């Protein structure tokens, strides 16, 4: 099978060690979240969802930054491999963004008595979700030609630039989300900080593994499409 110029398709076997490390880290993260971290005095056990919710939020934002970076590289170089990276990051990112909204609502209901509130963090994440979905709708509607890649790249850059502006503007809305990080301390007990660190490591690696698989699939799809175009063009 011909390889795309300039980029080697990552071999499936190189994901196996990563998958095993991910398994171990995830077990550690779940142990930390549900058993190791001490019980929060005010919110009780429902607070433990925080050790999943915050890492998901972090990774969801990083995924969109990854898609934006790949889009800039695509516009600068014109290489379709960067478009595959951008699409892969966005597809995995929308999954994480959806989970952030769901876990946030599950946490909010027993603590604040409401499934939703228009505070800066939640509002920013909801808009990030809509931007992700808009990106995927745009890709699906733009067809398969290079224009699709260009159009999607432009929107990914615009969307990523918008996210901090949503957060800044949402200061005008009331804020209910707990402030964890202060300028002087983490605001968490040591056992909670370790559980959070384990969660961040595990969910970040989960993102890396998923995106690698998706990029590999996307590169293979690109090779097959190019081969099919070549066969159609041949007399």
């Amino acid at each position: 099978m011909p390889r795309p110029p300039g980029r080697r398709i990552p071999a499936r076997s190189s994901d196996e060690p990563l998958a095993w490390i991910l398994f171990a880290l995830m077990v550690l993260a779940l142990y930390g979240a549900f058993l190791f971290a001490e019980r929060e005095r005010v919110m009780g056990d429902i607070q433990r969802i925080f050790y999943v919710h915050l890492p998901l939020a972090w990774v969801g934002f990083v995924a969109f930054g990854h898609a934006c970076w790949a889009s800039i590289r695509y516009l600068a170089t014109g290489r379709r491999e960067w478009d595959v990276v951008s699409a892969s990051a966005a597809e995995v990112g929308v999954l994480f963004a959806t989970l952030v909204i769901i876990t946030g609502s599950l946490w909010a209901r027993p603590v604040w008595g409401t499934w939703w509130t228009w505070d800066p963090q939640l509002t920013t994440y909801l808009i990030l979700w809509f931007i992700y979905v808009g990106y995927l709708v745009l890709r699906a509607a733009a067809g398969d030609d290079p224009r699709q890649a260009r159009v999607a790249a432009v929107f990914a850059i615009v969307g990523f630039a918008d996210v901090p502006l949503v957060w800044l503007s949402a200061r005008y809305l009331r804020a209910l989300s707990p402030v964890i990080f202060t300028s002087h301390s983490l605001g968490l007990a040591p056992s909670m900080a370790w559980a959070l660190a384990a969660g961040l490591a595990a969910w970040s690696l989960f993102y890396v593994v998923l995106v690698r698989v998706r990029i590999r699939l996307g590169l293979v799809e690109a090779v097959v499409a190019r081969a099919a175009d070549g066969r159609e063009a041949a007399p």
Partner: protein
Amino acid sequence: MELRSRELVTSMGLVGLLALVIQGVAAAGAPQAAEALAPAVLWVTVSFAATLGLARSQALEQEYQAGSAVLLAPVDRSTVYLAKCAAHTVVVVALQVLVVAGASVLVSPEIGRHAALLAPPLLLGAVGFAVVGTLLSALALTTRLREVVLPILLLPIVLPVVIASGAAVAQVLAGARLASLGGPLRFLVAYDVLFLVLGAWLYEYAVEE
């Protein structure tokens, strides 16, 4: 062409007025809340009518092949983008004037009394809407879903404009002076400048064949 036919502003204005009527009827059971709801009513109306207008503007350009003719001109694509932003800003401001006049009658007379102080946040909001809408409507019209996809792309991106401008409108209607609107107005200026620069850079990629 729009100066001659006024097709776009007329249709946007009618949609805007109809949206005001629907919101007015829906909120008729709570007249005491009209002033509190005014920022939401203004921006919901302007957002949806302006989105329709931006999509129609780009579609008209494609219909008459004016877009291709403009791109053939020996000027930088960013210059074309800035000119289109200016034109779209004028259209959105015209829509806002109609909506403010209509809302003064159908929603709350306080809106009309404070029209002068409402002008800065609404004008800056119009610029932000036009700047982002010009770029995203060029993207949307290249897809097979065309106008249908524009609200999905545009509305999340202009949400900061709606929030900040809406906050300033609420402060004005509550009796604030221009000097106390510094925060939202500075934010709107920063948003407009950022997306003007970003749009001028990215427009070339959006319209490339």
